[in-house]
């Protein structure tokens, strides 16, 4: 089972458009399902999302695995704490739920779909020329 997603358009300062690979999924919240728009990032070990989304999931922050996040700056003051929690994702194109570990953190945190728990189930092919991503679902992978 496979599906293809066109890359999402974003603006650059000069008014031109840049396109990036994204995938929209449904996430199980306390009172229903929320849509979430993730950048597909094959270079990221883990998926990531903002703390504000976490607050909608009805979990206890303390129950997550603590993790330290650093960005471009290696300074200790720039490191922030994150917590990894399992999150249920529904991928409508294949009609399935996946439980994926997601690192949540406070601040301007991106929505990233990384390798752990997602790339195990899909062969992901990026076509920069066509600006589209193909996701091939690997049936039967535990």
């Amino acid at each position, binding site marked *: 089972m496979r599906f293809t997603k066109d890359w999402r*358009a974003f603006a650059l300062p000069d008014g031109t*458009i840049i396109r990036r690979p994204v995938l929209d999924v449904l996430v199980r919240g306390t009172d229903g*399902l929320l*849509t979430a*728009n993730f950048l597909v990032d094959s270079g990221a070990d883990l998926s990531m999302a903002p703390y*504000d989304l976490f607050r909608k999931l009805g979990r206890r922050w303390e129950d997550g695995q603590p993790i330290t996040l650093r960005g471009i700056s290696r300074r200790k003051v720039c490191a922030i704490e994150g917590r990894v929690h399992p999150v249920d994702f529904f991928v409508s194109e294949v009609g*399935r739920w996946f439980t994926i570990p997601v690192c949540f953190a406070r601040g301007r945190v991106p929505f990233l779909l990384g390798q752990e728990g997602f790339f195990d*189930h899909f062969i992901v092919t990026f076509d920069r020329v066509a600006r589209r991503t193909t996701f091939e679902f690997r049936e039967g992978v535990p």
Partner: protein
Amino acid sequence: MVNSKPTEVKAISPELLELVSPEMDAWLNSLSPEVLTSYGGQYIAVRNKEIVAADDSLGRLFKKLDRMGLTYRVRYLYIEEPDAWVIY
């Protein structure tokens, strides 16, 4: 790290599926650079091919949508700031 065995689901509401449909994708990709720039650095909520709310804080956007009764009935997106290159 997590047992992520996928499970098949039959019933998701058509309203939700419409939010993540190819038609919605196409509409989002048709937004002009001017519109995208005007929402740069903000989280937006989209429904029926209309931006119904936006805020630079996802938490505040949720509160707005809670008041509107739309929290679970919109598509969320973060529009990257146009003056930043994404290097995640």
